[in-house]
């Protein structure tokens, strides 16, 4: 929770410019995340070692940043799935039976799509607010 409710980022006060802001991670209700399928095994050290240019070499920001972005994307996807599962379970499953019946499965599918739509809406609203605050500063 930000201290003042508005992000004062280290790069730019008041949040993201329209160039940087994620317009919505998902389009048309289908999940599409930047870089998926990468495992999160290993700590930071082993993965960045090669990008560090080996013994005595200069750092390669490009390679490291690619890995950073992938890891962030994977973590975001995990977070999203966890929260989506929680919300959709609560909305769609009444008294848990012996299996998920057809209506429950349909509800879950719709719920997933709506959750991602809602996520995009909230993301856009937040970004607009940050830009408004930034314009007022």
């Amino acid at each position, binding site marked *: 929770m930000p201290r003042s*409710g*508005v*992000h004062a980022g280290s*790069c730019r006060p008041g949040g993201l410019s329209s160039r940087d802001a994620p317009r919505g991670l998902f389009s048309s209700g289908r999940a599409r995340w930047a870089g998926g399928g990468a495992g999160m095994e290993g700590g930071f050290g082993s993965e960045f070692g090669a990008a560090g240019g080996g013994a005595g070499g200069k750092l390669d*920001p490009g390679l490291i940043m690619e890995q950073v972005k992938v890891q*962030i994307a994977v973590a975001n996807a995990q977070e999203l799935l966890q929260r989506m599962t929680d919300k959709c379970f609560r909305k769609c499953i009444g008294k848990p039976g012996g299996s998920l019946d057809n209506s429950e499965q349909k509800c879950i599918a719709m719920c997933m799509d709506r959750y991602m739509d809602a996520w995009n809406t*909230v993301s856009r609203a*937040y970004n607009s607010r940050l830009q408004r605050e930034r314009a007022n500063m």
Partner: protein
Amino acid sequence: MAELGGLDGARGPDPGVSELQRLVAAEQQRAQFTAQVHNFMEVCWDKCVDKPGSKLDSRTEGCLASCVDRFIDTTLSITNRFAQVVQKGGH
């Protein structure tokens, strides 16, 4: 770890490091934004979405957008008032 310290042996600061710091800071800001959206969803989904339908109707979309703004307003309100309370000698 001399590279991470920004020093390239005896030759001075590695330009790759400050560039990296800048890029990482930008990604961090983006990640903070995303984390905040997750937090808003926690609250606003329950408030605004009743039964998930085949699409989000305009009322729900409006509710979600308002929810974000009102939540931020609430945070600011509480922060400001709390600062006053603390200033006056606390509870």
